[in-house]
Structures are given as C-alpha cells and as structure tokens.
C-alpha cells in the first residue's frame, strides 16, 4: 500500500488520542477493530442493519459500520471498552446485563449495551414498551430480548436514583 493513498487521522477514543494512517474509505468500525485492536465493537452485518457496531460519538449512539473513521475525527468516541470506570467498576448497564442474563453468545452485547446507555440517557426507558421500541435497532439472534428489557429497566432506575442522590 502506498502512503499517498492513506491519510493521517486522529481519533479520540475512550479518552485517549490515537493517531493512525488509513485509507479514506476505512470505516470507523474497521479502524477500531483492525487498526486499533479494539475488537469489543462487533461487525454483524457491515451494512447498518443489526446494531452490533453501535458506539457513541459525542454521546450519541452511532453505527460504526456506516461511519467513516475520518468523519469521527475531532469528536469524542466511546466504545464498549471505555464504558466501565478506570478502576474496572462496571457501568450500571453492564452490571444489569450480567445480573439479568441479558445475553448468551455475547456478540450483539457491546452494541446492545451502548444502545442501552444512550436509550436511558435519551429518556426512552420510561416503560417496557418504550424500551422495546428504542432498543429494536439492535438485533439479538440468541433471543435475549426480555432480559435486555429487564436489564435496561433496572439500570435506568439505578441511574435515576443515583442522580437523585447526587443532586
């Protein structure tokens, strides 16, 4: 590969700055997985249909397979690897997924969790029906859906009560 086909980009991922040289056509998903070794973000379809590659860009849930790496330059990217605290304390959504057994094979799970964090933040976890609707973009072939709903419900309550305590 000749260097002139590649462009230098800087990505801010999970609070760390990464510099890489990639072809302009490299997706954020492939940049994460193949260029930076951050394989927690999954490739399920590579065409924006399954949600397994969901990450946050500036706090919004985004499909990394439909985003070019270059588009994410200068923006704050959060992947599943950056969700727990620095000391390893799980995010409330992660802990709820484990407790509720909201996954089986685990392949859709990072995307489910990233979507769930955003779903709660968006204020779309007010009822089970609302959770089902706003989590419907993340497919799970193992069929963990009822447990995903339970986990999002539990985490939303925990996050709400911890925010009340904080305020």
């Amino acid at each position, binding site marked *: 590969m000749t260097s002139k086909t590649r462009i230098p980009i800087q990505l801010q991922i999970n609070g760390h700055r990464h510099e890489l040289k990639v072809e302009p056509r490299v997706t954020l998903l492939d940049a994460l997985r193949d260029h930076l070794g951050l*394989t927690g973000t999954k490739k399920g379809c590579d065409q924006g249909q399954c949600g397994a590659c969901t990450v946050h860009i500036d706090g919004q849930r985004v499909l990394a397979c439909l985003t070019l790496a270059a588009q994410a330059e200068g923006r704050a990217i959060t992947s599943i690897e950056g969700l727990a605290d620095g000391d390893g304390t799980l995010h409330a959504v992660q802990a709820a997924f484990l407790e509720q057994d909201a*996954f*089986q094979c*685990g392949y859709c799970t990072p995307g489910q969790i990233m979507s769930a964090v955003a779903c709660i933040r968006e204020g779309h976890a007010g009822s089970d029906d609302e*959770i089902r609707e706003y989590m419907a973009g993340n*497919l799970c072939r193992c*069929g*963990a859906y*009822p447990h995903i709903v339970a986990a999002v419900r539990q985490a939303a309550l925990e996050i709400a009560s911890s925010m009340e305590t904080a305020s």
Partner: protein
Amino acid sequence: MTVHDVRSRHGDSKRGDASDGAIFAEAVGGRLSRVDGPAKITGAAKYAVEQQIDGLSHAVLVESTIAAGKVRSIDTAAAESAPGVLLVLTPDNALRLNTATDWLGTPPPDIPYCPLAGDITFSGQHVAAVVAESFEQAVAAAALVKVAYDETTAIVDLDDPKAGDGIPIDTMTKEWGDAQAAFAAAPVRICAAYNTPREYQAPMEPHGLIAKWQGDRLTVWEPSQWLDGMARTYAEWFGVPFENVRLVSPFIGGGFGSKAFAYGYGAVAAMAAKMLGRPVKLVVTRPQTFTAYGGRAATRQTVALGANAEGRIQSIVHRGVNETSVDGMWVEPLGSVTSIMYATPNFSSRQNVVRVNTVVPGALRAPGENPSAFGIESAIDELAYEVGIDPLEIRLRNYAEQDPEAKKPWSTRQLREAFAAGAEAFGWSKRAPEPRSMRDGNQLIGWGVAAGTYPVRRAYGEAMVRILADGSVEVESSSIDMGQGTYTILAQTAAEVVGVPAEDVVVKLGDSRYARAGVTGGSRLAGVMTGAVHKAATAALDQLVGLAISDPNSPFHALQANTLVVANGRIASPRGDGPEVSIAELLGSVGRSQIEAMGDTMPANSTADDRYKNYTTIATALSHTEGDYSRHSWCAHFVEVRVDEDFGTVRVSRVVSGLDSGRLYNPKLAESQWKGGIIMGIGQALLEEGIVDRRHGRIVNNNLADYLIATNADIPDIEVISVGIPDPQSSALGGKGVGELGIVGVAPAIANAVFHATGKRVRDLPITLEKLI
C-alpha cells in the same frame, strides 16, 4: 468416598432465588451468573477472527450470479493489477485438495476437492477469491473480477414444475398397523398440507476464519461448534496429520447449527494462506452468509388424521418433502415428531427429497423436529375443532404413554405436567372455544397451544481437570460455549465435585489442543460434558484425598483416616478432629505442583481409533432409543396473539411454556436458552422467509433488513416453567436437552392461536398479513 459441601463459606449473596430451594448458585443446579459474562459485557472477549495476527492479509470471495450453468471464463487482469492485491484465486490456479470424510464418517471418494466452482449449481457459489494487503483493497479488487457464464435453466425451488417428486428416502419410512385403511375407515378425517420456507440461522457473528501455516502445521481461528470435526476436515483437505491442525474458537457469536462444519470458504482461506506463506483472514459478508452454507430446507408435509368421534386418533398418514441441493444430500426428518407425539394404532410416514439449485441445506435449531411439529401440532388442532373439543383436551386424550414408534417406555416424559403448569399459569380455562370470540377493540384475540419435543442425543466425552498449586481448579475441553453456558456449568460441576468455590475454577474451552470433544449440536453438549467433567474431577479429588491420607509429609498422615472432607477449598477430617488446611497448603506440604486427571466416558476397551472416530464424526453417537428407554425433552407452549382485524397484522402478546429438560444444571442459563428458542420460533412463525427470485433462482432478501428476524419490539414477556425431573437414563447428572427444545412447537402454537383469533387456518409459514386479509 468423599464428602463435600460448598455451602458453608458463602453467604446469602450467592444464593439463588427462591425457586432453587436450597441449591446455592455455585453448585450444579444453582443460578450462577455466566462466568464468561464479564468478558462479554466489557468487550474483552476475543472472538475467533478478532485475534491480532502479524502479517495478516485479507481475502474476499467472488460468487456466482447465476444458479445453473458453467463458468466460461474469469477475467482477473483488472483485479490482479489493483492496489495491494496479492493473489486472485480461481479454479485454474487453486491447489488440488483432497475430498474429506463427511460428518457421518463416510470414507470420501478419491477425487480432488476444489472450493471454487466451475460448474455452477446455485446462485452465490464461490467462483473466485481475491487476497490483498488490506480488507478495503480486497473488497475493491473483488468487484473487478469479471466472470462470464454459460447459463442453463435452474430448478429454483420446490414449486418449480421441473422439480418433480424427488427421491424417496427409505430410511425415513416408518409404518405400523394399516394406516391407509384405518384412515379410510375413521369416522372423523382431516387432511391438510403444511409448508415451511427456507429459513436461515443468521447468527450475529458472521462466519469466517484466520488461517496460518507454519510449515505443514495449520492454525485456524474460526467460530466452531465442532473443533475436532473441523480440524479433521482441514487435515484431510490438505493431506496433513490431524494433529497438525489446531482449531481455536474461544467464543462463538451464535451458531444455531451453522458452525459445525468446515465449509468451502475455509478451504479458500487456508489454501490462500498456504500459497502466500502468510496468514489470511476471510470473513463472509452478511449477504454471503445466506449461500456460503445452508439454512433450513424448505419443507412440504401432508398430515392425514383419522379419529373417532371422541377425537381419539385411529390413524396418522404423513408424507414429507424437503429440498436439497443438486449435488449434495440433506434430509430434514419430517416424521420425527409425527411418530412419537400421540398414541395411534396405525401409522405411516414417508419422505422424499427434491433436488433444486440451492446451496446444500443444513442444520437450524431442531432440524426435523421443528417443521415436523408444525405439521402434526397444527393438524391435531384442526382435529380438535373438527370434533369440537378443547385443543388441550385432545392432546391429553391422545397422550402417548410410551413411545408409539419404538414401543419402549419413556425415560421421563413430563409433558402432562408441562400442559398442566402452562395452562394454569396462562389461564387456559378462561378460553372461549369459538374462533373470533375474544376481542379487544379492533384486535382479535386468539389463544393457541402446541407441544414440542427433541430427542436426547448422547455421546461419549472427555475432559481434563487439574488441581493447581494455588488450590484453584482448571478444566480443559475442546468443546465450546456459543452462549449455552458451557463455561459456567462446567465450572459449577468441577466446583461441586472437588469442593472449591466456582470462582476458583478456570474453564478453558475452544482449543483443539485440549481434551477432545464431539459436536456441539443436537442439545448434547451439556449432558456429555458435565458427565465427563464430573468423572475427571472425581478422579482428581480422589488423587488429592489419597495424597492427603498417604503422603508422609501430609498433615493428615498421622490421622489414619480413610476419607477426608474437601469444602470451599479446604481439607479436613469428616469428624472435625485433626488439622484443616487449604488445598494449596496440602499440595505445598507434599511437594506437588498440581494434580491432573483425564476423565472420559468412552467404553473401557476403546481403541485410539475409536476415540478419533468418536470425536471427529457422529458415527458413535448413542441412539435415544438404545436399551430399554426412549429419551426425549418435552414442552408445551401457550400463546396469545392479537390480530388487527383490518390490517391482518399479528402480534404475539403473551407466551407461557412448560418445559421438561430433566434436571437443569443452571436454571438461569437454561431459562435464557428456552426463551431464545421461543423467540426464534416467534420469528419463524411470523417473519422469517428466504424469498427466491424465481427468474434467477436467487435469494433476494439475503440481509438482515430484508430477511426479518424478531426484534426486541416483536417480543412480549415470556414465562418459562421447568417441569423436568432428573433423568438418569439420559445423562450422568440427569439433564436432557435444552437448546433445541424451546423452538419446537412455537410456530404451530402461534398458527393455532391465529386460527382461534381469526377463524383462518394458515398452513404455510410465515403467517404474514396478506394470508389473513
């Protein structure tokens, strides 16, 4: 010989919920959360093709765009000169591979195998591949490969007039009594045809691999339901010893039957890696997952039931057809539930397969039982309305007290209990019998019931258990965890046997260098592997206690005990006198770095060849009717649907299922698997259908937006009730199959509910709105 008790040290926080009674989470039968869960929720779990390998190159497949004919020529010039391209593979420059033994152990014909086709038998067949430095370069160059074809007429599907009646599969014939005569003489007769379309496994992780050669040794990182079987295939393809191939598959992103075999794309990647002398990664695209291996074959059944006026079945006449490929054979056993669910004095089932231009179909969750149950469980519902009795009552009236086909008693059959528990929780007694008699505004409400079953597939297994110097326990097996919970239940098994907390057990799976394992399919793994680990762990514990009693440096040496208690990682006398030391302290004092025990459940006189055959084929699997009993899991699904009267849209609003999988090794995880099967069944009933473009013999909805699987918004709360009892005839620890069972019977339960709601009987899946308006 040894007493163990894991209950004393851990507090109530480790206790399961009230339904467990006294079982603590860490013991077998406890509700321990997945031990591999933390890796999966943090992104740390590295799946097969996520291994970071130096010098990796990337391969992309080129597929046929016709369904039948020949490749006339392939123009590779543009692709070869594209940036970064290392190799363009076609049949002309492909290595000559050997044909491999099939999964049944059939010796292969002595003909070369080429994973790239010149003769085209289905659309989407691999015809070429491009390998480049980067994934993007390979994708771009693959689009430059120009293939010219001489096209011939394809047989596109079972409905094609050219398809014909197919080939009778005599081994599927089951007959007793005089079914035709008894049907003709029966006072009540129903006969109808039931169809299921092509359906796809669609695991969230696409298939693929990284292949790396070092001399004549091949390492393959590939999601796999059967490491040893696939290693054998790779070894035979490339003519290297079995031991030279290492399969690595630490996590599997869903399989559902589709990841048990090495397929053509694997041969392509391994071949390219050998030709280039560097590792090659090939992941099939999502659209390619619809043709790189087969989904469930489309099926057709006719079910004729003859009964008396009370609805007692006198005769069942069943005929089935499934599609297979032009040059491969797949038999979807359509009479498998038909022949055992209900008592009947007269029975006949026969099956044909029909060759069409498709990829050879494959296993999808409960192959055979799933479509079979759609036929018989729809038909008996029709019979219930015909004679005017409750659909639950007719099932109880025809309850099979023994296996009607094998004429043997059931090992356990808690189906009556499943009906009772499900009906009670669902509120079935409040059902108004007439169709269209229950509604909520413009929604017609329907309640349906159907039963399901799956045979207990048994096999021999082996496992390595080590007690390490720090007192922890290590379990090794080349079996796998694709979400069923193998890591967890094997940790529970070893923890309970040795007497250590489950958190002190490390389970290592998914590497063919570990103790061998047969296929993870047919819901056999948990029973096989808990048995093998139980045996190996027991042997390791015996060694540990033996050392403690007999070694002159052991603190227990002077005690003259003939047994010791190991609990929570500590060793003591059962009487409470004498010392109490940790396992680590004991091993330190006797100067041992570890204790190691291999356990296997093979017959004692097994040869090395027997073992090889056992773990790399299914030739040695034990029949579910071997010996004195017939062994099956059972379930009953109760479903509520709401059908919009104007638009014909169907929503499943409630599911309650009673399930008998024998003893559950971990109810928390078993419940998840049951629900997963039920959810896949909801998708099968209402959404899933591979749509063939009949002009080109091509699956047109080969992606996850057009091949609809259930989403979160399609699924209601689901209640599952375990009614199983330990079944010692089925497995060492009393469990029966879990994974396949849940889906069996869901589609007919929904179809039956839709009939109750609307008065319309839909006999071909999926139940889409145009069939209701």
